[in-house]
């Protein structure tokens, strides 16, 4: 009997050109393999390169500088002239009427004159790059930062701006940059989602920000909770439905084993239809994910020193520390794209001084901790860290805050093949418009893809009659920032 099944199986294999992975799986009877770690490792290696798996690691267009991305997103729009782009003229001309023409603004009225920064700037490191008092700890890392002071985008409102930052367009539904990265490169760890966004905001586009748009659903980001939740309520089961629900792991294993057996026979009777095979594999991956994810989310196994480094021991920094530490743990295990979100806090139309201070205090230590940790583990070399919001803020006042400014603002990168201790581009004397080496969001996207080894003009997907790109018909790689 066993021989008959076996020969039947081999026939199917030869007919369907079944992958070696499938052979291994069938031979080993599926969930019985959970204990066979060497076989698992083999499967894993095969899965990472195997055909038919949309998430299989793919060969990039050219040698990549970065293998993965961590985007530390400051949702709301942190003010560049108060953080990384000091403007002495603003201090000198504080309160004076604006000496330039105002572009389209978000706020309709209550716009005032020039407003100096409430914070002092100091020079740091070998590079002597100035950083304001808001980020004293990140400032210690300036020699690793590549500060882009000439960001430009098109969205004056949050909706358009965040959507463009995440998907390249301000008013349509398109795949997110994480989804594009995954589509281009696959992922290196088949036991974890390849694109994870931690506590994202549901404002201003919500799920579109990690959506796959018209790309296959496999490229969609996996959200861990959202910004309405506290980290402590999320830490046990960050991925929905991850943990066995009302059954013990013994019971679950018992159950899944026969389910897979049943599914396998069902598939065998149907010429091992690849669709059916794919669903069988999804269950196997789910079980492995339960094991590996539980391990990756066990942040508490980190040393006390590491927890302290990120600020996990401090009430103010705890939540963002958890995000940043998790980002490192995920990146370390081959997750292609991780986003941390400090949402939605940086929108200081009023009370700039108080609220920007609060916000910075929540993220400064965690971000600095992340940079230190990545560097000490040798991960910073091939991990691109990106920091920034959806726009900057105006050099002129809106009440006691600042309005949105997509015309010139700052983002920074670190690691992953960018020039360390480097300032790229500049805004005008007051920090309103980018005037030198302007870096539009399309250019930023092109550059990120370039660092990942992808040509943004070649990374296309056909939909609705034409080939789409993350950068649409735009985008120029900023070669000057490449290390």
């Amino acid at each position, binding site marked *: 009997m066993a021989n008959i099944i076996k020969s039947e199986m081999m026939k199917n294999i030869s007919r369907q050109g079944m992958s070696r992975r499938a052979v291994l799986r069938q031979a080993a009877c599926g969930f019985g393999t959970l204990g066979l770690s060497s076989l698992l490792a083999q499967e894993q290696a095969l899965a990472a390169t195997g055909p038919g798996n949309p998430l299989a690691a793919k060969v990039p267009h050219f040698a990549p500088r970065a293998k993965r991305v961590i985007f530390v997103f400051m949702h709301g729009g942190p003010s560049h002239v108060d953080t990384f782009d000091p403007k002495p003229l603003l201090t000198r001309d504080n309160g004076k009427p604006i000496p330039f023409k105002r572009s389209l603004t978000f706020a309709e009225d209550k716009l005032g004159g020039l407003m100096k920064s*409430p914070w002092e700037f100091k020079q740091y490191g070998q590079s002597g790059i100035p950083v304001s008092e808001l980020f004293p700890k990140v400032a210690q890392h300036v020699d690793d930062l590549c500060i882009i002071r000439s960001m430009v985008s098109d969205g004056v*409102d949050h909706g358009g701006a965040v959507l463009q930052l995440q998907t390249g367009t301000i008013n349509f539904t398109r795949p997110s940059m994480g989804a594009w990265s995954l589509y281009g490169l696959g992922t290196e760890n088949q036991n974890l989602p390849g694109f994870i966004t931690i506590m994202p905001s549901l404002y201003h586009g919500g*799920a*579109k920000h990690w959506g796959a748009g018209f790309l296959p659903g496999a490229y969609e980001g996996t959200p861990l909770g959202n910004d309405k939740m506290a980290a402590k309520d999320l830490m046990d089961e960050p991925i929905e439905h991850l943990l066995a629900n009302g059954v*013990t792991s013994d019971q679950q294993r018992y*159950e899944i084993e026969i389910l897979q057996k049943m599914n396998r026979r069902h598939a065998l009777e149907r010429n091992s239809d690849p669709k*059916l095979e794919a669903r069988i594999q999804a*269950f196997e991956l*789910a079980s492995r994910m339960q094991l590996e994810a539980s391990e990756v989310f066990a942040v508490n196994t980190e040393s006390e020193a590491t927890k302290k480094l990120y600020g996990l021991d401090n009430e103010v920094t705890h939540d963002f520390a958890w995000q940043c530490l998790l980002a490192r743990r995920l990146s370390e295990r081959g997750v292609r794209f991780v986003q941390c979100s400090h949402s939605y806090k940086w929108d200081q139309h009023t009370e700039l001084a108080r609220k920007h201070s609060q916000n910075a205090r929540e993220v400064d230590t965690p971000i600095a901790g992340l940079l230190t940790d990545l560097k000490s583990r040798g991960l910073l070399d091939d991990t691109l860290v990106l920091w920034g919001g959806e726009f900057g803020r105006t050099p002129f006042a809106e009440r006691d805050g600042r309005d949105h400014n997509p015309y010139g603002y700052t983002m920074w990168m670190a690691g992953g093949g960018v020039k360390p201790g480097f300032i790229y581009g500049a805004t005008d004397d007051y920090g309103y418009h980018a005037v030198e080496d302007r870096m539009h969001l399309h250019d930023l996207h092109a550059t990120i893809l370039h660092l990942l080894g992808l040509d943004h003009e070649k990374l296309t997907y056909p939909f609705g009659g034409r080939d789409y790109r993350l950068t649409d018909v735009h985008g120029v790689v900023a070669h000057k920032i490449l290390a």
Partner: protein
Amino acid sequence: MQSWIVNMLSALVAALLATSPVFAQVEPVFATSQSEIDFFENSIRPIFAVECAGCHGAQLQMADLNLTTAEGFFKGSARGAIVDPERPAESVLLQVVGHQGKVKMPPPGPLSPENVSALGKWVEMGAPWPSDDSAAVVAPSDGAKPGLWAFQPVKDHEPPKVADQDWVRTPIDRFILARLEDKDVRPSAPAEKLQLLRRAKFDLHGLPPSEQEIEEFLSDTAPEAMARLVDRLLASPRYGEKWGRHWLDVARYADSTGLDEDYRLPHSWRYRDYVVDAFNRDLPFDQFVREQLAGDLMPADEPGDINTRGIIATGFLALGVKPLAQQDKMQVVYDVVDEQLDTVSKAFMGMTVTCARCHDHKFDPISTKDYYSMASIFASTKSFEDAESFVSEVYFAALVEPEIYEVYRKEQERLKARRYSIESIRDLGVADYVQRTLIPRLPDYMIAARQVREDGVPTAAARAELDEGVLQAWIEYLKPGQFRPYLDKWERAKPSEWLAAAEEYRELYATTSQWWSTELKSWGAEAEEAIRAGDDAPDKPAFDRGGMELEGRFFLEVSSGEGPFSVAKEDRESILSDGVRARLTSLSEELEAWTKAAPPEPPLACAIAEGEPVDQSVFVGGSHKNPGETVPKHFPVALRGAWQSPIESGSGRKELADWLASPDHPLTARVYVNRVWQWHFGEGLVRSSNNFGSTGEQPTHPELLDYLAKRFVESGWSTKALHRMIMLSSAYQMSSQSSEAVSEADPENRLWSHFLRRRLTVEEMRDSLLALDGSLDLTMGGRIDDGLKKDEYGPDATFNPDSVSRRTLYLPLVRNKLPSLYRLFDFADAGASSARRNESNIAPQALYAMNSDFVKSRAYALAEIVVRGSEDDAERLERAYRLILGRAPGGGAEPSIEYVRSYPAGDAEGESTHLAGWASLCRILMASNEFHYVD
């Protein structure tokens, strides 16, 4: 040979940028010998006629290029000449048609080598044209218009003859079998009866067959059993729920505006219910088209009535995504116009026209002029109540007489005004209390708080007379390191200056408080005056004072929220004077009485209406800031011809609807029957069902497509007749199992040699799981509000699908916050018209089947039914299999009684392993591929 549609402009631009500066116009060259004329007529003119004239001909000159006359040819395109007399081999024409440069024309493939070399030879000769070139380019010999196949008129075709007459049940089968026989492929065997029943039931209802249905159908051995089944399924309201949902994908239906604000569209459900009803009533599709585009302009069924159905139907245009907070309001309007045009052209014509918003379409014969001519129709349509407001307001149409609506609106304003006057009196009462009792002590509080900070305790004297709670709040508020610039002065003050400084803050606070009280008072008075005069309620005054850097911010922080002088809601009553309290009580009572007596909200619809007709300009490069020439309202030249009488009055929606719904339109019927085919078979005859353009796919069986379109129109555009024709065919009733030979001969099923196995959609999965244990609530229509605010979603609104057991199509769809269930299981993204669902298989789906609360509840509900139903385990097993899989247990690799009996013990003390074991068995069957796939 296919005539490809080209856009020479982009080719030229690219080629020119890549090679040389813009060529000047060149002098015409005319033939000097008969042999040159013959060569042109025999070898060159046919190329232009067949390959190019669709876009660059007498009717349409994409990129200003006309390749059908000598004059047009030598003038070249908008960018100049296309031949270079000096260096003929380098002529742009040759680069483009030879696919040498970056841009390649015709788009999908180069001309044949013979044609390329003929053109090369001719250009080398100097590109001589006949001197007398008055003759237009000859049309291809079959009389068809040059252009896309899909633009040709629908032709009637005789179903072909076939050898195997026995296989033929309907004419469809002849078209299918003829091709199969031609390729020597045998169609798959007929599906087993149970498979066929399950297929038909999921297909038409999206639900599994019940035990009774299975028994009935299996025992009906008459030849017309299938016809009876189809009729019965089509007559059930479950049919409209399943097929309406198909159309809702195309119509990108959702219940919020998506994008930035994601506001709720509170009346959108009426459109959804209209669609369900339209399918159930088999509303003729041409009327369905007309109503969705211009139902508001059509007469009601009863003369004199408001055409509520027609108005609701235009929700089709109203339900798209809208960038409400975008501040360039002209852009907002034209983004919505674009979105509407995109949906209309994809849904009805299978065309993507919106590329032409910025430039002539690269692949299809749609020029920017065509785009703006069509856009003009939607720009003359009212989609917004107020597009100009800070967050643009969407238009809702009242489904009652305007006078009735106005009465309702006025009463709502009166209620609002009264609420405002109550609020103003209450706030004033609170302010009065603060002014009398707290403000005079403000310096004491500040100083005491400072003493606590610096010395640990305030002086006993100071403390004795202060409220402990208020003092604590001051201590908290004045904690250092809070970065409140308006407190700098206080922070800098030395102990000797404290009193004077605190006094200054008191003065500031008192002045601001007085000012704000005045504002509140006059607001309350205005509100009462509005009630007397019947005016709209006055807006609440905005708190804005002193640039907010100092006194304004100080006052706000101290008086509201957690501020030390804020008065908690629950304390407010007690601090008001008796007089104020009495006045508030009487006003509130009156308000309550008014509210009770107020007329109910009249029904509203998310719809559109006629707007101000616009004189539309072409927006160069897609930017409204760069208007070009004005265009009339008309339809694409390539489809409707160059000489249309422009639409002079109204928005033009009525004319658009009539044109699209005409039996002669080459696309409408074709596109729709192709969709219906796809929804039955999993793939369309044209696989790219939203794209019949040149980058879309060719039909696998063009004659069959046309045959179906013809019969469909003849039947009075009856969708149900189409279902019958398709479902009673042998093609539909084939097994999904294909033989080895067939798989090799027809791997993509383009010959339709077998039926395509498919996975359940998210709706089918959820509805079926609910149906298994009898908890599916079959109430139809209406709005579900659980967890959602009525008027807007707001970012905190969440809807949990587990909270209701209605059919999935009735659950609210918040675009930016779709429950993960939808995203996990490939729900169509409602951002744009969706032609088909994906079928992804990812691990989180498996986790859902294993660990979700929903599946767990279903498993236990089923286990209860199974265990209670019988004492006998064999009967229980039988029941579980019949309920979930519709068949008897088969043994072998499947869970059996033994499985339940050996189920491992759980953690919980005294837990019924038995019930848990049955629940586990049910969960397995519900998670099985057998359940999730339809053969």
